[in-house]
């Protein structure tokens, strides 16, 4: 390099060629360049789509998101009523909250400029503070493919449809350990499910225990307020899954199957005792009589026994379990499962008197006098009539009676073709049981398939097994053959009429659409009612019965302070096992409260 390097001196002057070119300056604020289409600016939350699960608040690495009780939003099952509030003095706009939002309500917008002299004004309620303009500016979103939430359920292994109609073997095979862990990992532990569960089980906790591989802790948590988890793990109506945060955009967490998996870790009575390690208080000398060994009665009995009460259950049938024992087919809930649960209860100190029908083998008066408190958990035993012509002919049978015969080991010849009336779980059970006897089964339901109150898994299962469903079919009469037996059933097709005021659509018969379905048996499954003939008249004044159901308060206490009631026969909740368990649990607390003074 010489001292004077002419090239090196002149080359930089090439920069002069830029003179006269239009500068690329963005003359902000007079001229704006839009932020990109997925810019991560200020948050926007669709308040009505948000369910307040708080997942955003949990993932936030900077603890910037608080859940706030927003007055304009009311909490209900499936919505905590809380909404996220972002501390913009913490936020780093990583958008993890967007990517984990199970509903997709939380988004980021293109808006990012916020300048102020007040450091206390950085608390930001997305969707409230930018209610008007926010929605149009949404830029960074997550859909089910980009979201970090796991929307796909681990499929449950089942017997093949063709295989399972051959026997009453359990259809559902249960999760393996890996499957259960994977499924439990999907749970975001928000706890919205606990509110929908009538019994408010500690769902996030036991699922988390399963996810961490602590199955025994999971069992222990489950037994904290549900003494019949094996039953719930198999046949629960699982309202919890209806409100699962993941269900909004994907599949709900298989809460029921996870519970089922957890109970499998304690396969014997000894194992249950060892895992649960129940603390039984000293006997306190007080006695409780329970009528009916169904889920309600058993739950009340179990927890009362743990509290030191002397509990005696009177059961009319030869087996405990009530409707779960007699109403649910064995391919859903095998007999040994029930026996194990009952045996465990008896080992805790619950006494069960089988084949003792109150009103016949023992009078209610005696029970009332002999015990400090009485719990009635009789359930609904009497089927409603179908209400059409010829329903008293041979070959027409109510579903629960049919199921009871089969479950007690009896037999009933359904012939070759069966018609089932109704759309609930009992109807499906009747249909699927009939299918197992080789019959060709058709379900007649007055509304659409999507209106069926039965579990969707049950409906699918039935269809797999070859059950045919005719929706929007209203039965009009049953046709006799010359021998006086059922020959067929006539029905009309219905159209759905939307109700004014937003009620659920009503089926209205289409005239002239009468069809006849020939069959050998008609199974009616349109609901049951309670039978109160055993209750002496003098109690009926205080134990108020309205529309066939006992009226109780929150403690499940009837008009007579000493008498409590629960299960399907009371007005509380829905007619299902988990509601019955909740009744039993609440009644236990009520009884404990009542008898506390005596202790």
């Amino acid at each position, binding site marked *: 390099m010489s001292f004077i390097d002419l090239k090196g001196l002149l080359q930089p002057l090439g920069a002069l060629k830029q003179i006269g070119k239009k500068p690329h300056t963005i003359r902000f604020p007079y001229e704006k360049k839009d932020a990109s289409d997925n810019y991560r600016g200020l948050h926007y939350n669709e308040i009505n789509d948000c369910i307040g699960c708080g997942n955003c*608040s949990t993932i936030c690495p900077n603890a910037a998101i608080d859940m706030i009780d927003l007055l304009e939003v009311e909490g209900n099952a499936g919505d*905590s009523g809380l909404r996220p509030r972002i501390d913009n003095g913490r936020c780093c706009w990583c958008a993890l909250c967007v990517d984990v939002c199970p509903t997709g309500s939380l988004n980021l917008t293109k808006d990012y400029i916020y300048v102020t002299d007040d450091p206390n004004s950085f608390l930001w309620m997305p969707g409230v503070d930018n209610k008007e303009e926010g929605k149009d500016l949404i830029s960074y979103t997550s859909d089910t493919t980009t979201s970090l939430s796991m929307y796909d359920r681990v499929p449950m292994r089942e017997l093949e449809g063709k295989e399972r109609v051959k026997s009453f073997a359990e259809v559902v095979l249960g999760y393996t350990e890996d499957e259960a862990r994977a499924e439990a990992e999907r749970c975001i532990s928000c706890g919205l499910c606990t509110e929908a569960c009538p019994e408010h089980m500690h769902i996030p906790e036991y699922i988390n225990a399963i996810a961490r591989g602590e199955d025994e802790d999971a069992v222990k948590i489950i037994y904290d307020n549900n003494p019949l988890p094996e039953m719930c793990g198999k046949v629960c109506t699982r309202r919890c899954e209806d409100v699962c945060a993941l269900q909004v955009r994907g599949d709900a967490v298989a809460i029921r199957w996870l519970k089922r998996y957890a109970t499998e870790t304690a396969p014997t009575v000894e194992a249950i005792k060892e895992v649960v390690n129940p603390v039984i208080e000293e006997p306190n000398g007080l006695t409780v009589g329970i009528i009916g060994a169904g889920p309600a009665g058993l739950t009340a009995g179990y927890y009362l026994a743990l509290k030191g009460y002397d509990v005696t259950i009177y059961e009319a049938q030869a087996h405990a379990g009530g409707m779960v024992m007699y109403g649910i087919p064995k391919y859903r809930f095998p007999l040994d499962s029930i026996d194990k649960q009952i045996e465990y209860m008896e080992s805790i100190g619950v006494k069960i008197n089988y084949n003792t029908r109150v009103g016949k083998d023992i009078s209610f008066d005696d029970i009332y006098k002999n015990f400090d408190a009485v719990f009635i958990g009789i359930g609904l035993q009497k089927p409603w009539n179908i209400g059409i012509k010829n329903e008293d002919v041979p070959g027409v049978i109510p579903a629960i009676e049919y199921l009871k015969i089969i479950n007690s080991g009896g037999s009933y010849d359904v012939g070759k073709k069966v018609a089932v009336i109704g759309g609930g779980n009992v109807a499906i059970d009747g249909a699927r049981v009939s299918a197992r006897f080789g019959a060709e089964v058709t379900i007649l339901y007055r509304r659409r398939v999507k209106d069926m109150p039965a579990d969707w898994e049950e409906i699918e299962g039935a269809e797999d097994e070859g059950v045919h469903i005719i929706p929007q079919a209203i039965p009009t009469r049953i046709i006799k053959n010359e021998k006086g037996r059922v020959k067929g059933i006539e029905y009309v097709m219905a159209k759905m009429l939307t109700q004014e005021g937003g009620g659920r659509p009503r089926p209205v018969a289409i005239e002239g659409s009468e069809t006849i379905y020939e069959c050998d048996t008609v199974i009616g499954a349109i609901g049951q009612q309670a039978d109160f003939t055993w209750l002496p008249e003098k109690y009926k004044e205080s134990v108020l019965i309205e529309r066939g159901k006992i009226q109780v308060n929150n403690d499940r206490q009837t008009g007579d302070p000493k008498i409590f009631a629960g299960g399907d026969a009371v007005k509380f909740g829905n007619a299902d096992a988990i509601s019955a368990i909740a009744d039993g649990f609440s009644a236990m607390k009520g009884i404990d409260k009542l008898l506390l003074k005596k202790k």
Partner: protein
Amino acid sequence: MTDLIKEQKLLENVTNPFKIKGRVIRNRRVEVFCDKETVSSVLLYAKTQLGYIHLAHMTCIDWIDENKFELIYTIWSPVEKVHLFVKTKIDRENPVMENIDKIWDQANTYEREMREMFGIEFPGLIGEHDFALEDWDEMPPMRKDFDTHQYAEQTYYNRPGREDAKDVRETLVERSGTEVPDFAKKYSRER
């Protein structure tokens, strides 16, 4: 991996003279475990005899349950292009480790940082005691038993206005009138 020949050879070359244990992790990764006394001779041997002249990094892991500090020396050969991890565990109480800045000058930086962050003494280490911190008089902060969140909350100003935050689970528990038993609470959602 089928051919881990040079990794195996390296392992033998390092473990045999010093009678130490080690394993081939995968291709280009070999680790050996030795006492704290042998570390410097292994490193010097690898540097001078085997051509592992590049000190890629040094670090320390606080295994508080074992009451040990694990020191990891990662060295690399530009010829073989293999990483050799030399690992050793030293006592967590009064940790003292041999100073290797004679072998690599830049080890001095790592060691000063470790002295500050973990409280490990390196006799003969040159350099001011403060590396990244200034006038620090608490426990060495990278130790597992130092709770940085608690310290920050006590020391620095926390802006008020966020007290009305609610926990989703607690709100639901309250609303449904139940209670979560204590033994289950450890499985509740972290907040």
